[in-house]
């Protein structure tokens, strides 16, 4: 699909926009609908759009598979780390109150960091799942059907 001019132009316009919107939703989850899951899914969708237009090797050159493995674990570990930080500073697990002095700021900081961990994990896991499926298509020597455009 790289040669299709219309798709390429629109993709070039849309993909950065979608990624920026995903970041906006990630960090404005406190004030508007959004949060970690939505942002992670949208970021992964932007990457999948890139792969659909430019092919899987180009997509994997941008975000390699090792990065996906590492990031998916890193997000969950960040979540656990924030939780354990609450324990280390004298509270319960996932208690945000001992993180900072002002209770509102502590809760907001804890929520932003935790949602960031969630977003990173969700985005990388969805990209990983798509890579697994897409690579299977390249290796499989069977009957193929067109089904990749939407």
């Amino acid at each position, binding site marked *: 699909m790289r040669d299709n001019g219309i798709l390429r132009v629109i993709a070039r316009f849309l993909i950065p926009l979608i990624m920026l919107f995903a970041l906006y939703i990630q960090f404005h989850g406190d*004030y*508007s*609908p959004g*949060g970690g*899951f939505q942002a992670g899914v949208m970021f992964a969708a932007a990457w999948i759009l890139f792969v659909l237009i430019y092919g899987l090797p180009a997509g994997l050159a941008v975000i390699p598979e090792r990065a996906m493995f590492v990031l998916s674990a890193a997000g969950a570990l960040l979540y656990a780390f924030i939780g354990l930080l609450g324990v280390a500073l004298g509270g319960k697990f996932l208690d945000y109150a001992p993180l900072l002095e002002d209770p509102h700021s502590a809760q907001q900081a804890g929520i932003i960091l935790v949602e960031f961990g969630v977003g990173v994990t*969700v985005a990388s896991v*969805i990209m990983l*799942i798509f890579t*697994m*499926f897409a690579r*299977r298509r390249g290796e*499989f020597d069977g009957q193929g059907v067109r089904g990749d455009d939407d």
Partner: protein
Amino acid sequence: MDLLGHYNYWIVVILMMAGFYAVIARGNMVKKIIGLNIFQTSVFILFISAGKIIGGSTPILRKGVEVYSNPLPHVLILTAIVVGVATTAVGLALAVRIREAYGSIEDDLLIEALDPPQEPSETEQ
């Protein structure tokens, strides 16, 4: 029976039964997974419509709004949607592997491939 007060639940039950029929009556595995997703989405509609207050609005604190819809079902359904996509992804991966191991994803052909009749219908050993 208060029919008009429950019309949202009627819609939910109809969608749920459509998804349920797709899961049990169709042999193709991908269609079963699609039916499962339809079922899941109808359950989400059930919860969200139970949490709505007529005259309320989205549960985000802002000026000029007194009545908010119930935020608790939203939290539950948010988690449920993500778990649903996880289940769908694993189910589709299983379907791909079954296809490669046995040559088809239709129920009747799989039954024949698993207890082989006289002619060899599987090509893998």
